[in-house]
């Protein structure tokens, strides 16, 4: 493989304190705002890049463009009123918020959701994971100029959104996982229609394998690029597929099974290279796991049964003082809710631990220096970060 090696002698050298001395006025450097309005950015965020030639010497991540103050808003909403807003914390995979919040509330209030609800929740989470991966897959293709991958994946995702719609009554913000259970049963014939979607997805994914993963250009641009040293995983809080791409076989679904994952049969996907290609491949293979899981859940889940536990009157629902942390394996890594209650009718504090928080901030800033400007978009997309969960 031919790689262009720039002459780094002209690059800024770290000063005595280890910091780069960058004087923009010298004309040697170019400051480039990658976002917030930029086709190569993962959502509404921005990276302030300092370039020397076409190599990035420094990158500062700027977030907050989507900050709505969720954690503050939740403190002035009752426990049931928080339910509709949590899903908005992460737009592409909202269901994880719903589940984490519901689970945390149930834990502190001493409620247990019925079995049927547990299965339905697992199904929703896997469907959400599938959708999230579809966006990631399309994003990686798009970031490397393969727009058609994005077109295909968005189409397949849309088919899944149709299933979401008939099941939950909404396309994006499903608001289906209430504290105490779920809102309803699966519609008639759902499994059959789901199977059609999964079959279509598999057909398109086979095309993705051919058009992207075996594509010489894709390989050239991703293999060996954006490598995260596995030694950085712990210090930088890298979890989920990003860590699995570096050979860390950690998956909360397996390690700390929640919902009904202990009754499902699946394996933890890993790669070893820890580069962009490996991260894409882990996700690609995890889609297959998700598809298999959806099929398993639909086959194994009970056909009928109550979906809601008995709740107190939610209009004046108080939860005793306590704190808990509920986490699960989202499509991007450890997604958790830290909930503190103080005995009143409102949460004392809700903190959302989104995996993007660590991946897109400290880790990305660490990875960017030294990359080529053309690879920055691919690097970001390969970390699979969603800005709304960083700033909330």
């Amino acid at each position, binding site marked *: 493989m031919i790689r262009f090696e720039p002459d780094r002698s002209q690059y800024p050298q770290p000063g005595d304190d280890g910091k780069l001395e960058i004087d923009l*006025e*010298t*004309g*040697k450097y170019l400051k480039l705002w990658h976002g*917030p*309005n*930029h*086709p190569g950015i993962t*959502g*509404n965020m921005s990276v302030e890049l300092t370039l020397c030639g076409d190599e990035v010497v420094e990158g500062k991540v700027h977030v*907050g*463009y*989507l*900050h*709505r*103050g969720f954690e*503050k*808003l939740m403190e*002035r909403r009752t426990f049931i009123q928080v339910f*509709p*807003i949590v899903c*908005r914390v992460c*737009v*592409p995979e909202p269901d994880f918020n719903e589940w984490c919040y519901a689970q945390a509330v149930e834990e502190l209030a001493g409620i247990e959701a019925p079995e049927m609800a547990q299965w339905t929740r697992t199904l929703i989470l896997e469907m959400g994971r599938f959708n999230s991966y579809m966006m990631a897959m399309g994003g990686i293709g798009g970031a490397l100029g393969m727009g058609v991958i*994005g*077109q295909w994946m*968005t*189409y397949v995702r*849309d088919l899944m959104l149709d299933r979401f719609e008939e099941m939950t009554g909404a*396309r*994006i*913000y499903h608001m289906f996982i209430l504290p105490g259970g779920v809102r309803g049963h699966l519609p008639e014939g759902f499994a059959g229609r789901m199977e059609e979607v999964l079959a279509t997805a598999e057909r398109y994914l086979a095309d993705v394998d051919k058009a992207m993963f075996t594509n010489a250009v894709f390989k050239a641009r991703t293999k060996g690029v954006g490598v995260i040293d596995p030694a950085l995983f712990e210090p930088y809080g890298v979890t989920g597929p990003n860590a699995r791409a570096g050979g860390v076989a950690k998956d909360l679904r397996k390690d700390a099974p929640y919902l009904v994952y202990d009754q499902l049969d699946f394996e933890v996907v890993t790669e070893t290279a820890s580069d962009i290609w490996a991260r894409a491949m882990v996700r690609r293979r995890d889609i297959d796991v998700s598809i298999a899981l959806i099929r398993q859940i639909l086959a194994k889940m009970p056909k009928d049964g109550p979906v809601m536990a008995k709740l107190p009157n939610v209009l004046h629902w108080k939860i005793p003082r306590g704190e808990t942390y509920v986490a699960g394996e989202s499509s991007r890594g450890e997604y958790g809710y830290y909930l503190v209650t103080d005995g009143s009718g409102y949460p004392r504090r809700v903190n959302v631990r989104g995996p993007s928080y660590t991946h897109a901030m400290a880790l990305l800033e660490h990875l960017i220096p030294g990359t080529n400007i053309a690879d920055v978009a691919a690097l970001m997309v390969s970390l699979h970060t969603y800005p*709304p969960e960083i700033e909330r």
Partner: protein
Amino acid sequence: MKDIDKSFRKDTETEFPLREELKPRSVTAPDGQVIEIDPLQDYFCQEPPKVHKQSYFRIVEDFYNWARAHSLWILGFGTGCGAIEMRPLMTPRFDAYRYGIQWRPTPRQANLLVISGYLSVKTLKRAIRAYEQMPQPKYVVGLGSCTINGGMYWDSYNTIKRLDDYLPVDLYIAGCMPRPEALLAGFMDLKKLIRKGKAEGANKYAENFDWYKANQKSVIKDWDMPDYNW
């Protein structure tokens, strides 16, 4: 505008300092030449926007409007949640391109700014810049509850409530968030407005420029950029 409670406006008296790179200074180029620059003078326009005059002949204006209606070029700036439902429109399933709608990466090539839901104050600043950089005639569509009356972030300290206080909105689409089909219906309605010559938001912005600026500056407390951003 509301009476302002001073306790929530601690720093309104002091002018926010201009960003460093916008200040006048002298720069030594690599070849040793010294250049005096004043970015506000050199890089930015000094004129407020002007009303886009209609053609003298009605038939010509109608023709222009017909043409404008059939080429809605949307700025691909996902300002909030609603952006996720724009993506399906760009794919074959909903295929907005057949209606003459397409997305552009830069404001210079776009004539339609879609505010996809809530705007945090930080994004509002960028949205204003993006809007002002768009060439006339230009249109703004607000997606969802948030742009109409604050939506579910009605009590948030960081999101605006009424989009029409800060930007001239030509059309609103209800929903949280509106589905792709609803967006298409909205764009079709916008086309009708344009053809009737009723989508005059940009002119309204030019006519009431001071009012809009005052509103914008009342929430963007670190106004460290020029007033005219094109």
